């Protein structure tokens, strides 16, 4: 009996130890990925504050908010979600002409906070890409030394099952510290556009090596009247890094035309 018991204990210990060893390896790997991403890209990640102004029937309200932005060009282009510069809400497109006349919703007073800088830099909305759910701000008078853009040419393709990582910069009350979130590509779609469907964090997506995979945006279906009530989780779409790079080049070309 003793030997049987001893054998069971050894087996149980082995069963317990093996996963522990795997988890530890996995943790080490994750720690290494996070450290690499933070070291490589954290300087490109900024905090962007802005004011949303809404007015209806002559009554105006303002609310300050902030999001993570990514420096994507040395000319001072900052990538942000489209809703930051062009705010809307589900059902807004179905407003009547009269309602639209008396309703206003806009963003203004963009300010970009760099790590280690006590004063923000003013920025203005440059352009948007509704297809990818992104927008570009332009910092109007930035210190060139602070502009360390992500190189969108350093990119890779993504497939279902690929894990992706998103760097964020926290709010001022957390000292604007950088953090890493992650997600996974669940599948691919070709309508209404060619994109991957993901779950997890939204923003500029990197792989574990720090290459750009694309931009993950939240896809609100304005035509879906029940979107806000029946579908709790709007879809997250990742558009390719190649598309993002091409669009950023076009956004940059607007600077020359001004």
């Amino acid at each position, binding site marked *: 009996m003793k030997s049987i018991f001893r054998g069971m204990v050894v087996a149980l210990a082995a069963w317990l130890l093996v996963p522990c060893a795997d988890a530890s390896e996995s943790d080490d790997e994750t720690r290494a990925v996070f450290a690499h991403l933070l070291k490589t890209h954290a300087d490109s990640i900024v905090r962007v504050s802005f004011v949303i102004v809404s007015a209806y029937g002559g009554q105006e309200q303002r609310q300050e908010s902030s999001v993570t932005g990514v420096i994507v060009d040395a000319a001072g282009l900052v990538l942000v979600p489209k809703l930051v510069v062009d705010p809307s809400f589900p059902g807004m497109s179905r407003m009547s002409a009269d309602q639209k006349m008396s309703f206003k919703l806009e963003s203004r007073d963009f300010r970009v906070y760099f790590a280690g800088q006590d004063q923000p830099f003013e920025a203005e909305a*440059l*352009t*948007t*890409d509704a297809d990818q759910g992104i927008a570009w701000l332009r910092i109007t008078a930035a210190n060139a030394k602070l502009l360390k853009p992500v190189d969108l040419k350093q990119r890779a393709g993504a497939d279902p099952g690929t894990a992706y990582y998103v760097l964020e910069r926290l709010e001022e009350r957390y000292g604007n510290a950088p953090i890493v979130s992650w997600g996974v590509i669940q599948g691919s779609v070709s*309508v209404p*556009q060619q994109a991957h469907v993901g779950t997890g964090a939204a923003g500029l997506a990197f792989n574990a090596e720090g290459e750009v995979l694309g931009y993950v945006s939240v896809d609100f279906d304005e035509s879906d009247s029940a979107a806000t009530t029946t579908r709790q989780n709007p879809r997250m779409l990742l558009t390719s890094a190649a*598309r993002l790079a091409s*669009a950023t080049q076009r956004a940059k070309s*607007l600077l020359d035309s001004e």
Partner: protein
Amino acid sequence: MAMGAPWGMAHSVSQGVVNNPERLLLSLFQDEADYEQQLGQNQPTARFYAWIQHDASISPGNSGGPLVSMDGEIVGINTRGNSSGGDMAFAIPAPVAATIVADLIREGTVPRSFFGFGVRSLKRSGFDRGVLVSSVIRESPAALAGLEAGDRIIAIDGEAVTVAEPEQVPPFLRAMTERRIGSPMAVTLSRDGLERKAKLVSTTYPPDLGHDLEVKAWGVTFTELTPNVARSRYLNRDVGLLVTGVLPGKRVATAHPPWLVGDVVHAIDGKPVGSRVDMQALDLDNGGAAPRRVVEIERNGAQLLSVLDAKPVRDEDKKLRELPKAWIGIATQPITATTAALIGGPATGGYRITRVYDGAPAAKAGVQVGDVLTALAGSAVPVSGDIGDEPLQQRIREALLDEPLQLDLWRAGKLIQLGVAPLAAPAPVSSLKSRTIDWLDLGVRNIGFYDRVARSIAADSKGVIVDNVASGGLAGLAHLATGDVILRVDGEVVPDVDRFEQLTDRKSRRAGTPLSFLVLRGSRTRLLYLDAEWEMGR
């Protein structure tokens, strides 16, 4: 008979009967003393008379028209009714109106004496003689003479007075105001069962409401403070400009802190302002660049400083642009495999070309209406249903500008391939350059590609599109309407909004001349005028 111009239809007559010759607009739930209080807010009519209530139908447009007896005598001036029209109407009694007319002709104003006390009738008071003092205004002649609310006036200048019913209050008050300004009035009072004497010396009746004014460039409307308005709002001072409206997004709405309705402006850059004249002297609506301003405002008893940001010369509406995307100039309808089989199309279905825009890249490449597009750049474009070609348009938008894009097209049972060089998509309407012409209450924008398509406007024709016309503004009085294409102003061609702004510049126009607009509305051109009289009336 009510004579007038209901809804602008002149020379109209309606008929009815007088329902009550002495109507006070007082509900069952109001104390009669409330009546005068509410008049002092924003409705300074009927303090000194009771209305003639009648049921001759009147509507907006009848106001100021006569109420005429069957003998042809004017018995009243129609003034109030239902805003939606109808047969409950109220007229100012003709004798009251006649007195005012005579005063205005003789003196240019209606002189009224002010004593500073309100009264109520004896109804349900238990008294059978006199009139009750319901309120005494601080520092008024009545207050200086020692009158108190609750006193009962039993005689004036030795003659007994009695106001038994509410309808008798307005004539009593009118008699008070018609006394010579500055003359003494001996009053016998009853207070706590004892009779007292008091002597009141009237002053000039203060205006209930001040002048209204608007500073369009700032997006704000004001009314001048009067002692009456200041009192009703418990303000510390009775000189200043009360903010009555704030336009979102304009300068005062974005000031630091933003202004609110109910604020009172006392000074701008250290200069006191309290009247329309003060504001006009600052020339704030000149359309030019505006410096930063520091404004002293009173809000809830606190004295605040508010800073208005500087404004550039032109308050150009900054448009948020959409990224320029590839465009080849086609409209399509999705064709499913089932439909394709019926029309002899490709087995996989595709996108049938329904329109090729003139001069667009697709037209230059030879794309024709009826072609069925099956692939872009060698890659099939899936069809997701019968409605909407967004998957295709999305793919086109992703293409690179100026780089050839191969189209696989099914034409007459055969597959052909054409190369198209995409251009940047035409600017969407929302990003076209626009201008707001404040004095006309008019918004215009340049004509864009999609306007030309929707209105069949030739590519070389010039003009601007009317984006919005404010209700009651001068553009509205000129009968301009949203969607009009303004081709000429005063005979001059309008190529774009910059030129339109020059042609409608108020300062460079000769006073007293009408402003003409040649507009395209639908398929017809129309000549519209802004009558010089309307403009001068502003």
